[in-house]
């Protein structure tokens, strides 16, 4: 049962290693007199799971392994398991206090507890803890037969797991701006800039000794983020359902003050010769002008579903907007943008399952690396942007490698 739990955790991508597992056994041995499904639930969660985004996976694994398990059966299994596995030699760094309880004593206490529990079950009556603090509480309220004691409305561990209250903390779901900010924050490039205000101790000592002991303070420039970001957002039409999502990405990027520069523009369905500065698409900047204004080192995040009528993408003058007729097709413009900004990714709110089946999404994703618009997707996109980009040098037309990140 417990090993199955271990492997189902791993199967659900909770990174549990032997380190955590040994910790859990150690803690269980220390806590044995109090063992119950509930305590095991919280104990396991505290020791095996190190991020709230994995709480949901933990709940699922827990449900799969312990749902409907009788309390007595659980105890028996737990005793068997600890009995089999816990070997003092296997437990490094044991705190001194724990050594006092030897295994026999532990087992004796455990058996004692188990016996009591059996009696209570056979008697068919409630086994009520005083003041709700007994780990056993009332029985029979749930298939697992255990309820959390303690005031304030006890929840059954299995039930807590069943509720899956932590579903919202999963990384692969779309989340709040804070998490998007965390993802964007990784897009930084520290370089010394601005006024020299940081005391350079090494330099100071050096200069002072050269100065025959007359103190001469040396300052240097602090390092600041030099990353520049451009956000291009598809608005209107098929993007309407995702408006809120795009908005949270936008506010995350906008609120991240650490970018050296941040610019955003809007487009409808596909990018052609114009990018709009307002959502209503009344004011625009020619795309060529953008190329002139903003350096090639800009990172570009395009947000859009890339769902459109194929002629909007492939046919010259195919734009959905009447005024935006242009001799070049959408895909040609996208290619231009990608050529000008090598560090570019596409975030798509549509589920990746549809990407290959849809002609325009597929075509766009062949041209620009596409990621789902989720926290995990954004993290992947940022990783892609962080990659070393080889910028062709204009002066000698030769390609010179330039490492963008430390």
């Amino acid at each position, binding site marked *: 049962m417990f090993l199955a739990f271990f492997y189902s955790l791993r199967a659900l991508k909770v990174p549990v290693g032997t*380190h*955590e597992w040994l910790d859990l056994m150690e803690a269980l041995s220390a806590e044995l007199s109090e063992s119950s499904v509930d305590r095991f639930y919280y104990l396991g969660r505290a*020791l095996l799971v190190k991020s709230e985004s994995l709480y949901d996976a933990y709940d699922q694994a827990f449900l799969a392994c312990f749902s409907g398990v009788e309390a007595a059966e659980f105890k028996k299994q737990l005793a068997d398991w600890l009995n089999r596995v816990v070997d003092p030699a296997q437990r490094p760094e044991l705190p001194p206090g724990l050594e006092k309880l030897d295994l026999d004593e532990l087992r004796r206490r455990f058996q004692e507890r188990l016996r009591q529990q059996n009696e209570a079950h056979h008697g068919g009556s409630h086994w009520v803890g005083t003041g709700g603090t007994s780990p056993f509480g009332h029985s029979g309220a749930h298939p697992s037969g255990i309820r959390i004691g*303690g005031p304030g*409305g006890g929840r059954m561990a299995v039930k807590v797991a069943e509720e899956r209250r932590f579903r919202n903390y999963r990384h692969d779901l779309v989340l709040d701006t804070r998490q998007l900010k965390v993802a964007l924050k990784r897009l930084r490039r520290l370089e010394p800039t601005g006024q020299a205000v940081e005391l350079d101790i090494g330099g100071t000592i050096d200069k002072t000794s050269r100065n025959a002991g007359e*103190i001469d303070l040396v300052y240097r420039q602090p390092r600041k983020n030099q990353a520049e970001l451009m956000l291009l957002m598809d608005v209107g039409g098929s993007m309407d359902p995702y408006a809120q999502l795009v908005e949270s990405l936008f506010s995350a990027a906008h609120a991240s003050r650490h970018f050296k520069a941040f610019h955003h523009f809007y487009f409808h369905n596909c990018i052609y010769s114009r990018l709009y500065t307002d959502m209503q698409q009344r004011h625009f900047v020619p795309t060529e002008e953008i190329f002139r204004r903003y350096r090639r080192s800009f990172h570009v995040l395009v947000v859009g579903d890339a769902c459109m009528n194929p002629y909007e993408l492939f046919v010259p003058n195919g734009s959905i907007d009447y005024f935006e007729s242009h001799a070049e097709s959408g895909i040609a413009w996208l290619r231009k943008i990608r050529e000008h900004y090598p560090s570019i990714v596409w975030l798509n709110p549509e589920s990746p399952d549809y990407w290959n089946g849809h002609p325009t999404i597929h075509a766009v994703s062949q041209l620009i690396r596409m990621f789902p618009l989720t926290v995990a997707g954004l993290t992947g996109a940022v990783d892609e942007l962080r990659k070393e980009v080889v910028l062709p040098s204009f002066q000698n037309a030769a390609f010179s490698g330039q490492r963008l990140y430390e």
Partner: protein
Amino acid sequence: MTSQALYQGTSDYVASTDLQQVVNVALAIGRPLLLKGEPGTGKTLLAASIAEALKRPLLRWNIKSTTKAVDGLYVYDTVQRLNDSRFGGGDVGNVKHYIKLGKMGLAFTAEQPVVLLIDEIDKADLEFPNDLLAEIDEMRFHIPETDEEISARHRPMVVITSNSEKELPDPFLRRCVFHFIEFPDEAMMTRIVQVHFPDLEKKLLQAALQKFFELRKLPNLKKPPSTSELIDWLHALLAMGIDSKRILEETPMLGVLLKNEQDQAHPRIARLRR
């Protein structure tokens, strides 16, 4: 089980059963306790509460974006020494004179076991937690300047809080007991409020809580009100002598709960106020 006292919350801090258990596990196996959770769920206060319950002194190490791991161990005040050597004063020949222990160093050298709070660890550089691994594992460190070895006399209870501004590195996480403090539900919140206002009228409390959770449920709030804002609001309501009926009808003094301009302009809040 051990000689260590068990943590069960303190008179001014209500800890849920699972939180108590997690604290005790961390104590029992001697690992740092890493706390995450929404701002205002009492992460920092928990450390103070543990210190109080276990009757241990609390050492607070507040992390800033410029904090380096070594700052917590010790600081070698070179500038002072340089200054002393130039202008006289101080025992320049003795390096020890210019070594000042940081919070972690103090926790290691303390006469009795302490609670060490490393507050908002995610504010520091990404590498910061990794730089502390060896110290947390072995509970000792070396000062090269004086060739001194500082090792912990008593293993401190380390409480670390994080607002998840940055992800923490895996090797660091592996060494921690992790707990995510959920936002209290109504029953829990009632208990928390009662700790702060033991004589609060029941009707008023119910009305205030009802409004509070209504506000929290509004979609798209930039900064949903948290426990500390609720406590402030109750203080304000009491000070102004506002009764439960008025609370329900007009939700007075919203400024205490919502600190963001956009939140205050939320269309449903305008309706709440009428």
